[in-house]
């Protein structure tokens, strides 16, 4: 069982924070297949957040095939993220290193690289949502 926490100042909506914390736990192996997520009532009573927020987060996780709700029992982890993506990390890191070298060659300093990466990342993420 994991415990959620909420950072209101982060600018990330509460439901996304819940989703991210579950994914993080899955990725780090804190949650395994068959583990139960806290009930909506428990999360709500602990964090003082809206039940619909938790439901929405759980629905999204269910939609992603990570968890499954068993009516009257609870929500359980059906898949872990730990190994699925780890294998892909190596090649991606290689690509990124090559891109960073190119950026430095073009004369960008650390801050410029970070700003460029973040704006591109956000724009891409938004286009995906849209």
């Amino acid at each position, binding site marked *: 069982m994991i415990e959620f926490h909420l950072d*209101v100042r982060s*600018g990330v909506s509460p*439901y996304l924070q819940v989703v991210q914390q579950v994914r993080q736990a899955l990725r780090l192996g804190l949650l395994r297949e068959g583990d139960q997520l806290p009930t909506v*009532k428990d999360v709500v009573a602990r964090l*003082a957040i*809206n*039940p*619909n927020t938790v439901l929405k987060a759980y629905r999204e996780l269910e939609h992603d095939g990570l968890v499954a709700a068993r009516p009257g029992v609870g929500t359980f982890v059906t898949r872990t993220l730990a190994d699925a993506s780890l294998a892909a990390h190596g090649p991606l890191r290689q690509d990124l290193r090559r891109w960073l070298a190119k950026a430095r060659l073009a004369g960008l300093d650390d801050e410029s690289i970070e700003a460029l990466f973040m*704006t591109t990342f956000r724009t891409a993420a938004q*286009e995906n949502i849209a």
Partner: protein
Amino acid sequence: MTAVLRARALGKKYQRRWALTDCTLEIPAGHVTGLVGPNGAGKSTLLNLAAGMLTPTAGTIEVCGGRPGSGPAQLAKVGYVAQDTPTYARLTVSDHLRLGARLNPSWDDALARRRIERLGLDPNQRAGKLSGGQRAQLALTLGLAKRPELLILDEPVAALDPLARREVLQDLMEAVAEHGLSVVLSSHLVADLERVCDHLIVLVTSQVEITGEIDGLLATHHRLVGPRRDIATLPADQHVISASHTDRQTTLIIRTEAPILDPAWTVSTIGLEDLVLAYMGRTARVGSGSGSGRRPALEVLR
């Protein structure tokens, strides 16, 4: 989606001053709806109208399918925890539970006793001797144990310290999760509302500025920063909520359903607090100008 509260052209006048004018809104059932706005914007008036404590001067209001305060059946459906959470100072905690049990056919005594026990309240304590937080919890217990379809809370946590505030909201949210009741609460603590609400109404100078699901509102509002430009040149589907200019730069908060394609803008998301402040500030500015300036701004919004 069924509406738990439906107001049409609702207005309330005290002597000569209108506390609420032309308020048209729908609050969907099964949600926790936050009502924000500056002091004197008409929040309490709207909630009092919904609870049947006041009768409208103009327009209509329908709560849980009936006219507020119209009879016992209607009263049973709506719980109301008034501002400053009034309790009978000379009655004990257990007297209050008895009051609830005697006056409400739908009273859930087990729930009430469980809550009082968990809160650690002494049943023989007089309500007048309770702390503000304990009194708020007692009033909330009365509201919850009545098992209403809609619970209305007017600034339930305004007078409480952060710990008591968190506890009240935790209990409230737990009850929402457990019993699936709809909640409408007013507050000017936007951080609290961001946690507990999924629906929002911004009320400024007795008028509804914007209403909608919070996630939807946050997804359709953006902060644009870019080189200085005239806001009249923006695409028609981008509604400006607030704008500020320096000699080089323009910063806007806009509402739009469509993606923002203009590469000149740096687009960022905004938090609920910024969104609420943008709406409050906008009306304050527009309102201070000529009266005719106000109407078009509202038209744009709708």
